[in-house]
């Protein structure tokens, strides 16, 4: 885990690697068919936690911003999740109020996680939603699956 750092002075825009921008677009934008993701924010968050799950962080090489922090704050739980991620990654309680660090950490995980999303969803020609569901199911922790199974029993 990274050591405690001072507050990150970066702007409040969320960045991705330019190379992955088409994947974001494919998964969110289409005039004809409804795409699996409502927003780039949802793609970003899924990519972030997939990256964490895979324990992969990739620094961004050629940044391009896709939305602002304000988009995240429309649903406070999203911000909390990213803070939790930063906390878990840094184990530094101060990180919770450091927006810059939180975003940096999330961006690097997302930069790794988007690759999996590209392979498992974006590259699929048909029924991207069900591929997304499948991916979610694949990375959902077993205890949740188990509890659901028990419930059903």
């Amino acid at each position, binding site marked *: 885990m990274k050591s405690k750092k001072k507050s990150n002075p970066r702007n409040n825009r969320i960045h991705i690697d330019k190379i992955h921008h088409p994947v974001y677009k494919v998964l969110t934008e289409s005039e004809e068919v409804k795409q699996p*993701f409502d927003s780039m924010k*949802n793609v970003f968050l899924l990519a972030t*936690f997939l990256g*964490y799950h895979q324990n992969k962080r990739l620094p961004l090489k050629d940044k391009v911003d896709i939305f602002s922090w304000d988009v995240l704050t429309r649903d406070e739980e999203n911000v909390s999740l990213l803070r939790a991620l930063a906390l878990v990654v840094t184990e530094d309680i101060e990180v*919770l109020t450091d927006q810059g660090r939180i975003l940096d950490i999330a961006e690097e995980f997302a930069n790794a996680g988007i690759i999996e999303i590209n392979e498992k969803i974006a590259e699929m020609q048909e029924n991207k939603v069900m591929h997304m569901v499948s991916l979610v199911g694949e990375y959902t922790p077993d205890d949740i699956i188990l509890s659901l199974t028990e419930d059903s029993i």
Partner: protein
Amino acid sequence: MKLNYITLKNFRQYCGEQTIHFAINNERHVTVIHGVNGAGKTSICIALNWCLYGTEFINNKFGQIGELVSKHLVARIAGDDTSVKVGFTYQDEEYFAERKYVRQGKTSFFLKKVGATPPYLDEDAEDRIQLMIPKEISVHFFFDGEKINNFALPESNEEVRHAVCNILNIEAVERGIQHLEKVAGNYNSELNKELKKQPESGLQILQNKKEELKKRRRKLTESVTEKRQEIAKAKKQIEDIDEELEANIASQELAENRKNIEEKLNQFKHTKSQVEERIRELANHGYIPIAKPVMDKALEILKNRDILTIPEPLLQELLKQMHCLCGRPINPDSQEHQTVQSLLRKITSSKLTTVLSEVFSDLKYVSLSRVSDISKDLKSTLSDNQELDRKIASHEANLIEIAKRLKNFNQVDIRSLQNDRDKCQRKIGGYEKEIQHNQEEIKKTAKAINEVNEEIRIASTSSDKVERLKRYADIAEQVFGVMKRIHALFAENMRKKIEPIVEDIFKQLVWKSSSFQNVQLSPDFELQVIDKFGEQAKPELSAGERQVLSLAFILAMAQVAAEKMPLNMVNEPYPILMDTPFGKLSEEPRKNITKTIPNIADQLILFVTDTELGDEARKNLNSRIGKEYNLQFDQEMSATNVTTIL
């Protein structure tokens, strides 16, 4: 027979007694009598025929010729001494026949063989003459120029046929034909009278009526049969339509079922789209369950720290109200008061504390509730989706099955089927009415037939005579037909006999024989000249050529007539008297004919006008002329005088 002389006494324009002697020498057997038009040439011909055959004959032959007695004589002497005497040689015996005008058309006639007595008188004399030279045949020896035209004229078949039949000398057959025709006519006339006497216009009418009724009954019966067939056909059509309608009811049920299934399917698909949207929405938050380990770890970290979870507004409200949440009062400077104030100070001094608190509460909520909700919802929605897929698949399979079954039905318009069915019903109704009507008519017709039968039975009793007359008339007509056929056979034989003779003579007479190949007397008695191309040349024949053709026919007839003479006169010479024969001939045929004719006839008497004999023709005849006369008409006396030239 050879004519020796003719003596006319006060006959027509011949006043007094005037005699013409004919050439009888074998070498010079041609007599030429010249005379301008109206000079009296034809009168000599008439005189000859009158003498031998009587007034009736010449009227038939020459038409109404007027008074026979010389008008000049009548005016002058009012006498009745008019006669014609003809001297001739027959079978080497000399005869003379004399006919005298008595009064009011009556004549006396006698025939005398020279040197023998007594003479034959009147009917006896006429019978004798008839034996020597029958009057029917005589026309072929004594003919005028008009006749030369007649036979070769277009559509002169009847005249030719008549001439041929005339020469047949089968009077018995002809008389039989005439008689039978008359007899058949009489019977028919009598039959008609008898039929008119029959009750209700006669038996035939009744028979006709009966036939008509039977015909009507037959038609009505046929119509009934036809209509019954039509009814059977219409009933079969109705059966077919009913079958089709039943089949269509089944197909309609299937179609209804399909509609329900389709509706359900649409509902399922709609639900599925909603479910899929829900899945999509849930999956969009799929990062939350995935973030569960992060949340769990973060909560663990936060739990180990002394993190206040009481929100600042709550602490502020507690201090303001000075009451605890449980309702107990908070006394100033009490421990509870100091604790709340301490907590408030900590909060206000650290923004971090607020964030910690928010994150903690959010994570707890999300971790405990949202993760589970999303996962459960997703699972349940996926299950719903699977169920929908199953239902959709099942319904679609049903639809395919229904579609297959519907394909086996003929797709028809039920309304149009129903209309067709109604039409058939109406047709049947109409036909049944017609049948009923026709059957009534058949009954009426049968009754009418019975009535007519009764009438026929009554009428038949009086119809025996009618039947007999019919039979007689039939027999007479049949025999008449047979006689006609016999007559036609004779005529046909004669035609075949005459044809080659005509051809032979024509070839002798015609002046450009190379142009013509043949002469035919066709089965329908048309004289035809066949040209060198084998085509009938008659339409293209000139007037002169036609005259030559006609002349050939006449001469042939004379030749045959001679053979037909009674008493075996086959070798008996015969005269030919020709009245103005060359009138319409040009110089060329005239030359040819005058060269030929003397060789054909044993005695030739030619009446010619002043222009008929040209130099060349005359030259041809010169060596054959034995006698030659000129007829001079005296205008003042209105009489003709015969002057001898040769």
